[in-house]
């Protein structure tokens, strides 16, 4: 029997009991709409979390240079320090002394955004670079020389002919959260467990000096969950021994005292932050924790979607399966006659199956239309929920993925066909003689 004839018979049987068909389509429509709406909502939330997390993981050009126990005094403005000036490391040691006196809480952590191409810094930064070597050296200052001691350590300039260049541009390596950094000097290993956040949107050169440093909102979103005795722990594991804030711009190294003073002030300001406890221990949760929370939310959203969708699809199947069962029973005479005049079992089954498919199709198409309409209402809800988790920087990706209606349709069709096998088998086993006898 040709496909169109089968389809026509299916439509005929559906039309024969309009009320039953209508009610089944309504049930399917509601179920499919709920599944799609939930999926649309869930996917929006899911995608928004993913995008916001990715943004947090990848966005920004803020680079942090961490060197171990070596303070690096950067240049200011256009009059940069010659590398040679640091060779005696005097300033370095002075600063180091200050920080040592400040309980050596901090390692050297240096923002390098001020020399980066992109100065915009987001509060969702998670990627940063750590250089085990000083960031800047004017190559023309030491061309032909080797083994400069800079920022407390020796390093080589391999290209003697290099011109004035940002050494750190070539030395910088990018690190992700959770990466480890191994310093060459003492082979200490650190785990990147957070990042510094600055609200710098300005060229530090134009700011200059101490003020710039003060503008840095260091540790606003860092991940130091615990500091103690100059050590930073993350999840109970020692990740950083000491951190010394060391980014400042000290023209001619004349402001060491001011710097130190400001650093002290800065430390005080840190202590005044709510996230510091009375002992000065930073207790702000880790961005990793936040990311983990986000990931957990994604999984939870996914789990809820899958659970409810399966539940609803099962209910739909129950409805359609029941309809098929009733259809088979009520059309015994019709199918019996068809079989008597030569219709094969498989053709009869196809007629019934297409009835189910047509109903599912109508229900799904209607549900898709409704869901697309309702998705406009979903977007602000997702935005509101995302804002509560990620703040204003959250990315909102709301909408019903185009493949969802198809997935719902094929899932419903697949399950319906699967669950109607028993009823369809009844058709195969239908005794034509008994059907004829019933009527005769």
């Amino acid at each position, binding site marked *: 029997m*040709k496909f169109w004839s089968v389809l026509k018979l299916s439509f005929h049987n559906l039309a024969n009991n309009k009320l039953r068909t209508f009610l089944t389509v309504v049930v399917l429509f509601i179920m499919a709409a709920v599944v799609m709406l939930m999926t649309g909502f869930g996917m929006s939330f899911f995608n928004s979390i993913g995008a916001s997390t990715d943004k947090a993981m990848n966005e920004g050009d803020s680079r942090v240079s961490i060197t171990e126990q070596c303070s690096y005094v950067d240049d200011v403005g256009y009059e940069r320090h010659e590398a040679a000036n640091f060779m005696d490391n005097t300033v370095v040691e002075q600063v180091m002394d200050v920080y040592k006196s400040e309980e050596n809480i901090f390692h050297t952590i240096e923002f390098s955004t001020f020399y980066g191409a992109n100065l915009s810094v987001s509060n969702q930064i998670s990627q940063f670079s750590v250089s085990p070597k000083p960031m800047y050296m004017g190559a023309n200052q030491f061309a032909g020389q080797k083994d400069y001691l800079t920022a407390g350590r020796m390093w080589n300039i391999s290209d003697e002919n290099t011109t004035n260049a940002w050494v750190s541009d070539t030395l910088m390596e990018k690190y992700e959260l959770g990466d480890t950094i191994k310093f060459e000097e003492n082979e200490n290993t650190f785990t990147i467990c957070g990042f510094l956040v600055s609200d710098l949107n300005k060229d530090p050169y134009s700011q200059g000096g101490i003020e710039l440093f003060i503008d840095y909102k260091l540790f606003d979103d860092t991940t130091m969950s615990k500091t103690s005795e100059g050590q930073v722990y993350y999840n109970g594991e020692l990740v950083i021994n000491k951190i010394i804030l060391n980014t400042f711009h000290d023209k001619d190294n004349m402001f060491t005292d001011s710097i130190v003073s400001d650093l002290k002030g800065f430390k005080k300001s840190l202590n005044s932050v709510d996230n510091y406890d009375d002992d000065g221990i930073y207790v702000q949760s880790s961005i990793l924790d936040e990311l983990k929370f986000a990931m957990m939310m994604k999984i939870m959203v996914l789990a809820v979607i899958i659970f409810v969708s399966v539940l609803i699809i099962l209910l739909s199947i129950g409805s359609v399966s029941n309809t098929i069962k009733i259809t088979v029973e009520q059309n015994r005479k019709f199918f019996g*006659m068809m079989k*008597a*005049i*030569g219709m*094969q*079992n498989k053709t009869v089954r196809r007629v019934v199956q297409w009835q189910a498919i047509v109903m599912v199709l109508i229900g799904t198409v209607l549900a898709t239309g409704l869901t697309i309409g309702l998705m406009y209402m979903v977007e602000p809800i997702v935005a509101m929920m995302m804002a509560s988790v990620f703040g204003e920087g959250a990315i909102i990706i709301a909408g019903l993925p185009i493949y969802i209606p198809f997935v719902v349709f094929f899932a419903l069709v697949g399950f319906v066909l699967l669950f109607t096998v028993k009823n369809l088998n009844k058709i195969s086993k239908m005794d034509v*003689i008994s059907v004829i006898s019933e*009527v*005769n």
Partner: protein
Amino acid sequence: MIKLINVNKIYGKADSAVHALKDVNLELEEGKFISIVGKSGSGKSTLMNIIGALDSVTSGEIECRGNVLCKMNDVKLANYRNKNIGYIFQSFYLEPTFTVLENVAMPLTIAGVKRSVRELAAMEAISKLGISDKTTKKASELSGGQKQRVSIARAIVHNPDIILADEPTGNLDSQNGSEVIRLLQSICDEGKTVILVTHNIDDAKKTDIMIEIKDGVVANIIHHTEEEKLAAQHASDYDEQGNLKEKNMLDNKDEEATIPTSDVATEGAEL
């Protein structure tokens, strides 16, 4: 030739088993109008169903025009029924929401025949049965006699070799019943084998061969001469006073009917 060799049919098992047919051996000649008569439960419908490949035998063999039905699987049997058998049921078995044309064309639809071809064939069959004016009517809108004509048209539309009619007159009044028998005779005259299952002896007397089934056994096979058939037809056409009974013509007034009425049947008898 339709051959039944030691055919047994048992329904049920053990104590509840019913032996519907017992060692039935028959050879039915093609192109004949054959009736199977017997009381209710005698096994006549079972015999027809087995010949029509609607039912299987418990033991024995059945061969229709070279096809050994016992060896066929469900698919082949379905195809066999679709191509070789035309069924006429007592309750017509028309789909009430289909038009006459759709009902008649159904065997061809199932066979996957192209729409234009099947509609042409259906129109031809409808025309033969004299119900051309009902083509677009729904089956539910027809009278009993008209429904049976549609049923007969459906049985012949695919040009089968064998027409099986199970109590086709059972739901009709005597005149419409008589008309149906005439139509079956005319189909037989076109070379088809028509097997009529009936408990009406008067109808059976109008057939070439009357097979009497009794308790699942072939009790009698009676060959009717043309004269006997004519007499039986005459008896149903005229009342006891010799007056021609008013013909209802299956509720049909269609003048285009090409299937011979009693007059043509008489002509056929003279031949």
